[in-house]
Every structure is written in C-alpha cells, then in structure tokens.
C-alpha cells in the first residue's frame, strides 16, 4: 500500500472557530492562497527537520504532514511514521508502506546527522533542553531524545550523548477545536481556571493553543483579553526569535523558553495578563506559581499529563490546588479512531458536568 499522494481536505482547520475576527480558514475555497501557505509551512516544517541530503526520503511524510503525529527514529531500526490511521514505514525512496520488512534501517551516523541538524549545528544551545530529554526545533516541533545519559556530580542528569532514539512530535494547529468547549470554560463573564488532562498524544497542547487564541481574539461569550503564555518548551507557540509561529491570537504575549514558575511571575509583574497559559504543569514550583497567579486575580489555563481526572484529584502533589479548588474546570481528553474528545468535563469539586464533546 502506497501513500505518497497525501491527504488534506478533512483537517480540522477547515472548521469555523467562533472567533470575532475574520479568519482565513473560514473561507469556503479550501485552496486559497492562505491555505496553500499553511500547507507549504507544514510541509517545510517536516522537510527542514532533516539534512538536505536526506530530504528526498521524507518527501511523502512531508506531503502527509496533516495526518502525521510522530516520527520515530531509532538507530538500526526502521523509521516509523505515526499517522492518524496508524504506523507507516518509509522506504529508500520515501514511499510509505505498511510493511516494516521492506523498510531500510536507520544508520547511527544518519541519526547523529539528524540530531546535529535539528540542533542547528549548535548542540551547546540545546544543552538545557537535552538535559530534560528533548530538543525544541523550529516551528514548534518538539523532539524527544533518548540515549546514554551523562550524570553530573550530584547524580543529576548533565546531558545525553550517543543519542539512540528520537521522537519527532509534529504540532498541529486545530483552529476551532475548542469552539464546542467554550461554553464550559466561562462562568458568567469570567474565564474559569481550566486544567486539560490526558495521556500523551491526545491533543492537550493543540487544544490549549486554540483556547488561548479564542480567549485572546475574543469569542461569542467575551471580547478578547490579554493572555500571557509561558512556553517553556517552545511547543505551544513555536516561537522563532521571540515571535510565535502559531496563531495564538492578537492579545497574546509569549515568554519563550522560560521556566514556567519564573515566567508566570514575570508576566504577572510586567504584562498584566487577564489569563496565563502554561503547558504541562509539573513540580512544586509550578504549583506555587499557579496559586500565586490565581490569588492575583488572573485566570490560569494549564495542561497536565495524567490518564484520568481522579489521578489529579487524588494525587498528593496537587493537594494545594485541590484544597483551594483552584481549577474550576478539569477536562479529560481522549482519542478514539483518530478523533479527539473531551471525555469528561468536571468542576472544581470533581462533579461531572459534561462528557463526550468532540474537539
């Protein structure tokens, strides 16, 4: 089975999104100039991840970028493209097959060349990120890495050398994806503190990106308000030289590559945001910063890795957030047949408000 033709017509970007701003994706003609540019940008985002000499092999993957979720590269193993409809394997000429048997194995030196290229030939610039297990590539693409870990004197991770695996996570802009969730995100004229929960790969970041855009540009419920985004991994905004490459709305200020806890404080002090958005809450510092932001009267939009709402409500680490019922909406996301759903929407007490909303 071959898949070099690429699909495009069924993407979520064709939907209406409920903003009060005219949007290029609302146009009926799906092949207008803006759409073509989006498509070219998306293809380039994939193509340019690879050194020039390898690009031919990634042509089909680049053409199918709208369906592409992840590219798994492992030394001495076939490359796996995780598409909306399952796994595909590119052959020598870049054609996609279902059969892994015919797929060539990736050489270690090819993998090293890809790592160097993704780092922009500046491994030192990615030192901090590599320490945390990923590299942020241009266009908001996050590349997870695994290999031999170098430990520091106190047993902390200093860096990763001899990279053996890469997981290239392809970001998508799903404009309008949050449209149906909007009624649940507001209480009267106030934006609720909202936490999006899901296991990896269920669209938390994509959905958060769209919520930010809708809040920033304004929507049917409220006019636009200033949103501050702390984008620690450059994944939400896809910033290049401080300017977001994804559409986060016209009233959004982004602190790129900044630790969440510091970033939230900085935004509160200097940018007076109506809402603050952060991706993947983690340590105690993040929790403290969220509490501080909420006490300052700022709405918080955040995401969290977990497989159920209960995991959040019961976990000791988030006790401080639960005691104060900081998050007024906790939304569990899931995936079925390649489509994303808000499986559960709960309030701050954990009461189920709604479920099964497609997004």
């Amino acid at each position, binding site marked *: 089975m071959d898949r070099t033709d690429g699909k495009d017509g069924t993407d979520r970007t064709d939907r209406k999104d409920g903003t009060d701003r005219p949007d290029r994706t609302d146009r009926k003609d799906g092949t207008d100039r803006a759409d073509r540019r989006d498509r070219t940008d998306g293809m380039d985002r994939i*193509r*340019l991840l690879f*050194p*020039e*000499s390898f*690009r031919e092999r990634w042509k089909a993957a680049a053409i199918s970028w709208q369906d592409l979720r992840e590219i798994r590269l492992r030394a001495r193993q076939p490359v796996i493209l995780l598409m909306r409809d399952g796994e595909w394997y590119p052959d020598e000429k870049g054609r996609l097959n279902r059969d892994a048997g015919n797929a060539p194995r990736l050489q270690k030196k090819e993998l090293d060349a890809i790592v*160097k*290229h993704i*780092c*922009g*030939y*500046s*491994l*030192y*610039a990615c*030192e*901090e990120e*590599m320490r945390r297990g990923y590299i942020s590539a*241009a266009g908001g693409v996050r590349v997870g890495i695994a290999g031999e870990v170098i430990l520091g004197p106190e047993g902390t991770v200093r*860096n990763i*050398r001899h990279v053996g695996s890469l997981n290239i996570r392809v970001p998508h802009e799903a404009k309008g994806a949050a449209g149906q969730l909007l009624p649940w995100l507001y209480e009267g004229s106030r934006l609720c503190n909202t936490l999006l929960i899901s296991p990896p790969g269920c669209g938390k970041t994509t959905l958060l990106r769209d919520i930010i855009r809708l809040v920033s540009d304004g929507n049917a419920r409220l006019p636009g308000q200033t949103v501050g985004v702390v984008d620690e991994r450059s994944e939400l905004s896809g910033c290049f*030289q401080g300017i977001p490459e994804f559409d986060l709305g016209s009233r959004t200020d982004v602190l790129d590559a900044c630790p969440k806890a510091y970033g939230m404080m900085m935004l509160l002090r200097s940018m007076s945001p109506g809402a603050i958005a952060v991706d993947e809450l983690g340590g105690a510092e993040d929790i403290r910063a969220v509490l501080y932001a909420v006490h300052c009267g700022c709405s918080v939009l955040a995401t969290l890795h977990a497989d159920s709402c209960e995991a959040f409500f019961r976990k000791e680490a988030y006790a401080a957030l639960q005691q104060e019922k900081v998050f007024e909406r906790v939304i569990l996301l899931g995936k079925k047949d390649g489509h994303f759903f808000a499986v559960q929407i709960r309030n701050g007490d954990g009461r189920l408000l709604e479920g099964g909303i497609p997004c």
Partner: protein
Amino acid sequence: MLKWIGLCFVAAGTAGTGMRICLDRKARIAQLARLGQMFGRIAGEVSYSRTGISEILEELGEKMKRSGDFSLGGTLEAIGRELRNGGGLTELWREKMSAYMERSLLRREEKELVLSFPETVDFPDAQRQRTAVEAFAGAMDREKEAARKKEAEENRMTMAVCLAGGILAGLLLL
C-alpha cells in the same frame, strides 16, 4: 636627459610595486584582525546567550554590514540565513567562506584554519564550545601579531629592494 627621466620612471615603478606589496601586507593584517574579532564575537554569544550558530552568524553579519564590512558581513549573514532555511553548516561555510577568501591575501594554512571552523561546532556544552571558538580567535590574533611585528621590517626591506632594483634596472638600461 631623457635617459635620466626614464631611469626615474623605472625606479618609481618598482617603488610603486613595493608599496603595493606593503599595502597587501597591511590588508592581510586587517583581515586577520577582522576574522579574529568575528570568532571572538561568536565565542561571546555562545557563552552569553547560548544562541544557535545560525542566529549568531545572521546577527553578526548584519552588525558587520552596518559597520561597513559588507564583504564578511554579507557572507556571514548569507550563511546564517541559509542555515536557518535548512542548509548544512559544513557545506555552506566551506562554499561561502571560500568565495570570501578567494581573493584574500591570507596564507593557505590560515584559510584552511578558517574553513575548518564547522568541525569544532559540536560540543554539547557552552563552556567547551566557547573555548573551542576562542581558540580560533586566538589563532587569528597570533597570526596577526606575528605579521604586525614583522610588518615594519619587511616593509623597509621590500621598499629598499624594490627601489634598489629599479635604480639598478634603470642604470643597466642607460
């Protein structure tokens, strides 16, 4: 009378050649200084902002162009821009810097040193990367200082030889 005027012209011609050689020597020192500064500024950016090499080259190129060095500035800017668009550092650096140094008066080993720069941009930490880039700046500075020390002596000798050669040739032609 005409013979003496001819002799003066021959002597002036050879002296002019000598001056040209001296000016070339000065230009080489200036170019070494520029390259040393370039590597020094790259090292500074590596350690201060840990910015990627493409961004550093692009910004440095712009700054150099603003300060009047269009040739090296334009070269760096082009490398940075094409790197950002997905080009490879080794190929781009070799191609563009070779073109920049094609007419330069640098010695072969100095050119080779400049062209070998991409091979050292693979340290995983900023500290060691800075040291590696600073080594290039240091090498350029050492070459420059050595050339500067010898410059006055070599210039004197060049002028003397050229002038004497001119006069001798003129006398032989008389």
